[in-house]
């Protein structure tokens, strides 16, 4: 009767695990079935092979007897104290098998087998440590404003355990090397080589220590920045979905212009903070200056002013004049635009700076401006001309009014 004919029995559930196989999936299948680490089972077969070649015969037999197929369910590996006990118990059982083989004479030689056992054990520990220490896929925090210390502590504990396993594995492999060299009488020759290597490593370490230290610090800082950036993005998404939407709703639904203006100012400040740029009026750059001017016009006239800036730049006297002209154009649009929203679009690039201020009011005839309207003539057109730029006003009853302010690059003024 085949082993797979009784699915309810313990033996009936044993299958070769082809998905996790190295050769035929015997070790992976046994590990899955009994909920132990596959590395331990592989280690057992390797050690049994070292002691007289029995492992190969056992593996071949298991290959023939155990049917292939995916295991019905993946059992959780023992963790913590249970994992340590399973590993120690398996190790002691393997040791007993080895000692028994040695006593029976099924043995290659001590200088070969014991270092091989140590290397296999150390390799299994290193393998397990590297598998555990692999970073888990980043999960988006569901509540970014709440600190989650507990999962972080567990993650750090897992990393520490993996590091200690890896360290023990490396120590075992190094010990195996020493044991082999000692047994073969090559240790004294190797000692000179090792001393030379140690001296070279120490000298190179002393020379490159500052760079290594800087690299480590840089990597740490980069990681910190990345985490902060991710948290900030999560918080921005959260605020966008909640607070900013509410502020936008308040602006649309509120009948009180003052409440709408207040909500708009808060929205603007919050957006500036989320984008890590200075708030309106703070700093010496174009975008906050335009935002501040728009906020002031909104507060004075109760008309929403939407500002979009592409390509920020530092303020200089000419750019400050352009900001002042833009503010004047916004004020005119708010005063004469019949309450329509004012759109401001600014674009800065290597070729210069252009700002468009548009409203959807009734419009006017720019050529028929009365002489006493100094706001347009002096504060907008004249101001731009004095700083090497120009202002163009386009207006019609159908499309409203658009003021285009253009400032060429500094070298062309």
């Amino acid at each position, binding site marked *: 009767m085949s082993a797979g004919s009784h699915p309810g029995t313990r033996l009936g559930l044993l299958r070769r695990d082809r998905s996790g196989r190295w050769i035929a999936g015997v070790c992976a299948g046994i590990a899955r079935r009994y909920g132990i680490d596959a590395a331990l089972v592989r280690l057992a077969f390797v050690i049994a092979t070292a002691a007289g070649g029995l492992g190969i015969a056992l593996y071949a037999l298991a290959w023939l007897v155990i049917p292939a197929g995916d295991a019905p369910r993946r059992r*959780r590996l023992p963790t913590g*104290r249970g994992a340590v006990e399973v590993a120690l*118990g398996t190790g002691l059982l393997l040791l*007993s098998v080895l000692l028994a083989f040695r006593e029976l004479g099924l043995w290659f030689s001590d200088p070969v087998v014991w270092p091989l056992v140590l290397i296999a054990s150390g390799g299994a520990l290193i393998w397990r440590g590297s598998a555990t220490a692999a970073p888990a896929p980043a999960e988006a925090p569901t509540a970014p404003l709440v600190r989650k210390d507990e999962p972080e502590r567990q993650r750090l504990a897992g990393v520490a355990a993996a590091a200690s396993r890896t360290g023990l594995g490396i120590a075992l492999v190094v010990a195996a090397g020493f044991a082999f060299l000692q047994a073969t009488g090559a240790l004294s020759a190797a000692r000179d080589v090792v001393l030379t290597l140690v001296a070279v490593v120490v000298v190179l370490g002393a020379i490159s220590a500052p760079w290594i230290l800087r690299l480590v610090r840089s990597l740490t800082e980069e990681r910190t920045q990345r985490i902060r950036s991710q948290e900030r993005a999560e918080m921005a998404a959260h605020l966008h979905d909640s607070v900013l939407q509410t502020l936008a709703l308040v602006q649309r639904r509120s009948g009180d212009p003052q409440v709408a203006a207040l909500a708009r100012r808060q929205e603007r400040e919050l957006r500036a903070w989320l984008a890590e740029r200075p708030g309106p009026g703070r700093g010496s750059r174009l975008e906050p200056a335009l935002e501040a001017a728009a906020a002031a016009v909104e507060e004075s006239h109760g008309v929403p002013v939407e500002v979009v800036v592409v390509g920020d730049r530092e303020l200089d006297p000419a750019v400050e004049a352009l900001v002042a002209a833009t503010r004047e154009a916004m004020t005119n649009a708010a005063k004469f635009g019949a309450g329509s929203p004012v759109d401001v679009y600014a674009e800065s690039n290597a070729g210069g700076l252009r700002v468009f201020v548009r409203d959807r009011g009734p419009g006017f005839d720019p050529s028929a401006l009365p002489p006493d309207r100094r706001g347009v003539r002096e504060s907008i057109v004249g101001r731009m001309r004095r700083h090497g730029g120009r202002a163009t006003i386009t207006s019609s009853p159908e499309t409203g009014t658009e003021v285009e302010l253009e400032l060429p690059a500094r070298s062309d003024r």
Partner: protein
Amino acid sequence: MRAGRPDIPALVAGLAILALGGVLLLDSLGAIELSFGWFAPLACAVVGAILLANGLARRE
């Protein structure tokens, strides 16, 4: 007496120690010659079996 599943780790430990005691008794009676070369793997097997049974049972 409470009926239920047997305590596997205790059972394994008991049987292993019983086997070890049996072997030592046979050695004392002169029925077998137990050298250190055979006692060492036997002791390792007993301790290993107990630890393995405990470890596997702990995750249940």
